[in-house]
């Protein structure tokens, strides 16, 4: 018996922010798209992350992609027809007093970033505290990026998916692709329940799960599934405009926070836990919540009096060099990858989608993505 097949110009495996935004921009270019998602769109890393829409701190070579994403974030509400709660209130990156060597690094970064069109203002601890009085005395210096901000991760990817559907894309949830192969000119994808999908072009945006699909095409990537530590406080009067984060080589000190307009303060960072992609589970380790609180109190002592009402985490795939895999497959024509965003894919997400759509539709992009080639792991 033959099962009916769904066909399209492009099939996408994985409905996170990368897959959903790629579907939207491909549909905008007039291509027919099938987006396949094991779970619900945007419920994994893309729906559980901290929501930082931050360019500063990214590798300098990633800034063109980040700038492209920034432009999309700014017009997201009009583009998508729904509010993703993007607030462009700036981002502050600070270093702690016991790591003075970071000040020089920040200055160096600011010079390079300016050449890529990202303006950063360097401020001493006291200047920072004058403008942002909630910063603690442990803060030595910082760099302010006025044109960065934050958005609501629970809303972003589903909004891209709905907008893609309006343009004709077919978004198919509860559909886990277990087998993918290129047969003749087409990719044939098989879901767990036997349904099949066919397309001449395949984009794999399967996040922490991508390794399994990639291996079916004879390529290997090591992705370590981890679970960043998140918390949120009770609502308090809205007074913290920018998102704030610590620059440090030590994971345990890497904490950050932002306040949403309703008043809750979202807290993130410190040691990450392991996560379990096969079971679709991630857990918050209480000891990490405690070190997160400890370093947040250094960053902003007044947070100590606020109540945390919920903690959570999500499943994110980390590559060994913390850079994503993005671009064409090294072995199979018509196959494209965008995964492994290593804890920093939210801001660039819409830029990744638009860039992949451009690459697939035109065979070219001006955005430098060569360094993200899967071949580097070969």
């Amino acid at each position, binding site marked *: 018996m033959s099962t009916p097949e769904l066909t399209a110009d492009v099939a996408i495996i994985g409905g996170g922010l990368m897959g959903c935004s790629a579907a939207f921009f491909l549909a905008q270019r007039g291509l027919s798209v099938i987006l396949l998602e094991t779970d619900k769109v945007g419920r994994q890393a893309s729906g559980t992350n901290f929501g930082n829409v931050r360019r500063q701190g990214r590798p300098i070579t990633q800034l063109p992609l980040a700038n492209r994403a920034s432009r999309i974030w700014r017009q997201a509400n009009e583009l998508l027809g729904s509010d993703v709660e993007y607030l462009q209130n700036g981002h502050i990156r600070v270093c702690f007093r016991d790591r003075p060597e970071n000040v020089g690094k920040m200055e160096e970064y600011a010079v390079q970033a300016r050449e890529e069109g990202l303006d950063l203002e360097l401020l001493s601890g006291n200047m920072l505290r004058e403008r942002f*009085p*909630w910063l603690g005395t442990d803060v030595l210096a910082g760099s302010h990026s006025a044109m960065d901000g934050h958005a609501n991760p629970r809303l972003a990817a589903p909004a891209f998916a709905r907008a893609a559907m309006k343009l004709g894309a077919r978004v198919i949830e509860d559909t886990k692709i277990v087998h993918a192969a290129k047969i003749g000119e087409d990719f044939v994808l098989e879901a767990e329940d036997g349904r099949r999908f066919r397309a001449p072009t395949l984009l794999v945006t399967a996040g922490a799960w991508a390794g399994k699909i990639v291996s079916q095409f004879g390529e290997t990537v090591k992705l370590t599934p981890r679970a960043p530590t998140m918390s949120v406080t*009770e*609502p*308090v*009067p*809205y*007074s*913290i405009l920018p998102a704030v984060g610590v620059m440090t080589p030590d994971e345990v000190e890497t904490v950050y926070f932002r306040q949403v307009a*309703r*008043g809750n303060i979202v807290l993130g960072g410190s040691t990450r836990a392991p996560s379990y992609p096969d079971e679709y589970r991630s857990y918050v380790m209480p000891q990490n919540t405690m070190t997160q609180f400890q370093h947040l109190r250094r960053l*902003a002592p*007044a*947070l100590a*009096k*606020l*109540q945390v*009402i919920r903690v959570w985490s999500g499943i994110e795939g980390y590559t060994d060099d913390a850079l994503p895999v993005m671009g064409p497959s090294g072995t199979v024509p018509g196959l494209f990858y965008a995964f492994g965003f290593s804890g920093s894919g939210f801001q660039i997400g819409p830029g990744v989608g638009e860039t992949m759509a451009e690459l697939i539709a035109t065979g070219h992009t001006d955005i430098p993505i060569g360094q993200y080639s899967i071949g580097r792991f070969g």
Partner: protein
Amino acid sequence: MTGRFRRLDETDRALVRLTVDGSEITALEGDTLMVAMLNSGLALRNAEFGPERRAGFCLMGACQDCWVRDTDGNALRACSTPVENGLAITTQPLTADWSVAP
């Protein structure tokens, strides 16, 4: 009678004095902060997302509707916090510079 609650028994207890938004109120030793405040007033705080005043809901530490702050900014769950002489409570929302409060 200006309070929301009514005392029915156990009125033979020592007096405790505290302030709510600067005005002194009296309560009885063994009162929860909630009972103290609702025997002399109608509510504990303003809702964050609606026009109404709130006066707690579950009295057993489950709903988290009864949080108030002392004037140092410490959060107190009124239904499970015993009153003490000299406690100073504010029912006003934190000011926007909450973070630099004393």
